[in-house]
């Protein structure tokens, strides 16, 4: 019998602290109208003292497990998409393993594909399951970007938020995850960077003074690539499945910027009311954005059995990809 995979449960966590655009008017030269018109962002959530990537990941994971009617011990692989883990190592996935109180030493790893991290991780979960290696995979996308954002840089500080989303991907007799397309092009690696704290530029007093421990981004070129590649990835995977946008119930794109989302929707010729957006409330939460969006849709009973959902994302690398699944 052919083994398929399907998404069985959804959960997400957003920190309680909410910042509106006026907060940033006090710290950099910007204003609410500028932020709204350029990005569509109105509010975002930031972690409080003591909250980290792993604490948020665990909250989202618990909800996803409950939603799937599973216990943590049912899981046999943990994949965490993040670029803002608790520590350089050990992986945030191992911290999640510990915090969930899982008794078995199941494999747990982080996956670094920036904003495409959840699409990458879910594709890997699907592949492991189809290969018969694992049966129940916990996939988390989590980011604590507020701690890695330069609050003196008006171009980036308004963009990012914190949060976590999780799904349980399980073996299924019916096909849930139908296909994916993953891609990367390192020729665009300079577009979104975290310059210091790696083996290229280790942390020194100087790197701290030069403010190299924050995300840098070339906004215009990233925008262009995001529109192109998020569109083409979705088209490629739909094409492989012999489907069109008419078959799609929801497009859940990475929530970076409302204008990227609208431009992708226009190019895909998909009705805007089929496109889920929460970037206005949550900002860009990188790898967490798609699973948070899915969990919100599920929580609002907007995902029904048989629905076809397309995910598409692009992030630092550049990495990008799209995945299509059917709700089982």
């Amino acid at each position: 019998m052919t083994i398929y995979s399907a998404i069985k449960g959804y959960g997400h966590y957003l920190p309680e602290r909410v910042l509106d655009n006026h907060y940033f008017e006090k710290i950099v030269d910007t204003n609410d109208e500028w932020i709204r018109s350029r990005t569509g962002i109105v509010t975002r959530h930031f972690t409080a003292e003591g909250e980290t990537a792993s604490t948020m990941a665990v909250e989202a994971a618990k909800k996803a497990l409950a939603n799937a009617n599973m216990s943590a011990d049912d899981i046999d692989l943990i994949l965490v998409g993040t670029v803002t883990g608790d520590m350089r190592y050990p992986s945030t996935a191992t911290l999640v393993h510990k915090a969930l109180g899982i008794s078995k030493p199941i494999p747990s790893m982080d996956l670094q594909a920036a904003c495409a991290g959840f699409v990458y991780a879910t594709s890997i979960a699907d592949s492991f399951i189809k290969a018969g290696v694992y049966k129940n995979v916990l996939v988390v996308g989590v980011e604590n970007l507020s701690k890695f954002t330069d609050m003196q840089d008006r171009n980036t500080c308004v963009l990012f938020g914190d949060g976590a989303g999780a799904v349980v991907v399980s073996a299924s007799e019916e096909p849930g995850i139908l296909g994916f397309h993953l891609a990367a092009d390192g020729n665009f690696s300079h577009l979104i960077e975290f310059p210091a704290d790696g083996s290229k530029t280790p942390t020194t007093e100087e790197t701290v003074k030069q403010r190299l421990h924050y995300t840098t981004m070339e906004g215009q070129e990233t925008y262009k690539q995001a529109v192109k590649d998020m569109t083409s990835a979705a088209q490629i995977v739909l094409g492989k499945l012999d489907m069109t946008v008419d078959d799609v119930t929801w497009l859940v794109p990475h929530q970076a910027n409302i204008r990227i989302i609208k431009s992708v929707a226009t190019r895909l010729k998909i009705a805007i009311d089929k496109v889920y957006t929460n970037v206005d409330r949550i900002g860009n939460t990188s790898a967490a954005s798609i699973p948070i969006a899915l969990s919100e849709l599920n929580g609002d009973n907007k995902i029904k059995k048989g629905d076809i959902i397309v995910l598409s994302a692009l992030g630092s690398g550049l990495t990008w990809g799209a995945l299509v699944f059917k709700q089982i």
Partner: protein
Amino acid sequence: MERNEIFNKVVELAVDKLSAEKAEIKEETNFIEDLNADSLDVVDFVMALEGEFDMEIPEDDVEKIKTVKDAVDYIVNK
């Protein structure tokens, strides 16, 4: 393609992507200063040019395309 034909296409795309009125667009019209385009509007417009004229406009060249004339000249010279 004739220069005039390219000009008309560029105007068409400016109307579509930059919400400009056709009548107000002239050779010297500056996208940012005259049409109130922001940096992302310009990127959208450049992507539309790439699609229409089947060409890649590298990042460095985008900065040189400030007016309708710049866009038309760029396409003519490619």
